């Protein structure tokens, strides 16, 4: 059954090579992307997000007692809350399953036994998952945008496009946090549990905590603003609202304070917050994964 391999090996002796840093990352990214796209979870998330996005587009006029497809600007505002619920959940769980899943299946050891570094494995997985999530979001936003363009024309498409951009940033930040959770967890179930709790904390608990803290500790408005933008979801929300040329006054005194004191620097500050939420957890994940004593 097994052919005469010895003859071949002695005849074609060459110095085995390890892949370059970028090459290794790219190979893992491609594999991760392909696996993610083929997974049922991604199909389900993409389908659900698309249906909800089109549904929100249709229902955007309900607030003024009407129905039918609203323009891009109003739809972007309507989609804001949907994005804040669905996208963090999608990215956190995808990230949480990445390393812990490989570890639990026993495949991580085999990958690490190849001529690659831990950094290459982790960055490759992050990049591949990021590409898959962006594809999923593009499908949802694309179909919703296509329907809107067909029914209402192209007015306000800029705000909608910026919403897509900010959503990608939010997804990357949440993915990094998910990957960090995954690196720290031995089991997929534990990683998923922590990811769900983190999602709950970002979406609901932090708002409630901020409200309670502001009352209990009589926080000043600038302190409340500082605490608010620590939450990437709040940064995302404010960035989208500012981008729609709306006044942050809709967010109350804190929003009014931010508009007055930061002015044109505010959007950059919010985007920087989202970028920091992408880079710092990912950097920490790489550090912890590289220094881990076991597989």
């Amino acid at each position, binding site marked *: 059954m097994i052919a005469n391999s010895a003859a071949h090996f002695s005849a074609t002796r*060459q110095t085995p090579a390890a892949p370059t840093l970028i090459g290794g990352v790219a190979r893992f990214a491609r594999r991760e992307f392909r696996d993610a796209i083929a997974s049922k979870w991604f199909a389900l998330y993409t389908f659900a997000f698309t249906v909800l996005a089109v549904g929100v587009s249709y229902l955007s006029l309900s607030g003024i007692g009407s129905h039918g497809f609203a323009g891009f600007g109003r739809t972007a505002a309507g989609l804001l809350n949907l994005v804040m619920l669905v996208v963090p959940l999608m990215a956190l769980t995808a990230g949480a399953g990445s390393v812990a899943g490989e570890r639990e299946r026993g495949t991580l050891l085999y990958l690490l036994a190849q001529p690659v570094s831990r950094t290459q494995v982790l960055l490759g997985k992050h990049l591949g998952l990021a590409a898959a999530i962006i594809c999923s979001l593009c499908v949802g936003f694309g179909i919703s945008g296509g329907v809107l363009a067909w029914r209402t024309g192209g007015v306000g498409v800029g705000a909608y496009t910026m919403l897509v951009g900010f959503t990608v940033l939010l997804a990357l930040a949440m993915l990094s946090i998910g990957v960090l959770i995954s690196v720290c967890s031995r089991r997929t179930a534990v990683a998923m549990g922590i990811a769900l709790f983190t999602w709950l904390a970002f979406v609901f608990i932090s708002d409630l905590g901020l409200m309670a803290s502001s009352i209990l500790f009589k926080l000043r408005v600038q302190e409340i603003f500082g605490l608010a933008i620590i939450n990437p979801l709040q940064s995302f929300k404010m960035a989208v609202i500012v981008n729609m040329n709306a006044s942050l006054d809709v967010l109350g005194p804190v929003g009014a304070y931010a508009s007055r004191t930061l002015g044109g620097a505010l959007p950059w500050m919010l985007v920087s917050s989202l970028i920091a939420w992408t880079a710092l957890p990912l950097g920490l994940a790489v550090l912890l994964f590289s220094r881990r004593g076991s597989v």
Partner: protein
Amino acid sequence: MIHAKGITKRFGRVQAVSDVSFELDAGASIALWGSNGAGKTTLIRCLLGVIRFKGNASVGGVDVRRRGRHARALVGYVPQELAFHDDARLGSAIVFFARLRRISRARAAESLAEVGLIGHERKRVRDLSGGMKQRLALAVALLSDPPLIILDEPTSNLDAAGRGEVVETLQRLRRAGKTLLFASHRPDEIISLADRVLVMERGRVVQDTTPVELWPTEKPVQVIRLYLTMACEADAADVLREAGHAVHLNGRGLCVAVPRDRKAEPIAALARKQIEVRDIEVLDDVQIQESSQ
């Protein structure tokens, strides 16, 4: 090819590998022999540089701790059982590993052909038998023609035919000048493949010997398990080693490899030291191949 000095690995309170040192020349072959939990797998993982450890290890002159990626490029690793995504197809799996090692698709196909897996590329990994998975792992390990092959109990999940194929391939690789380091529970494999045997127990190398010294017989060997009281297992192991038997503790008794017609010898040796054997179980009937003698 391998230079290991003072390799020590601890998992919390458990000392998995303790101060292991050895050298392995290019073209030579060394077997790790010991019970489950003796530290064989952990030692292999240290040598691969996939876990952090104290001490020094180099492969082909490349420091495993500092330049693990480059050291692993010199190693083909075969695990106990191939762990790869179950949904992946065999063809795409080997191409993935080929790209990691900067090997062409054509060479990947050759590698599959060499282990008799050509024509199975469309099969998913989950649909492969244990033997096919192991052959795939061997194909991956040999993709870049590495000078060193490290195998962690490569035949433990295979039937007799599968074992024979793997051992035959490894014998060919030895003849081609490859360096082998492998863990095994089977005396026949060790006798037919290894120049030296490191006997491991509780993370330590307790004996650095040769297969002939461990099993000084041309007759078939059987592995028997002796059940003793826990308190005297370590003493019993020492007694049996002094009597020239290959022994290892595996947490459920004491395993001893003996010639088939001398199974009572270990019991007699223990009786002379007033160590009582409660029960005996014959585990393996190992036919040592003629080619290995």
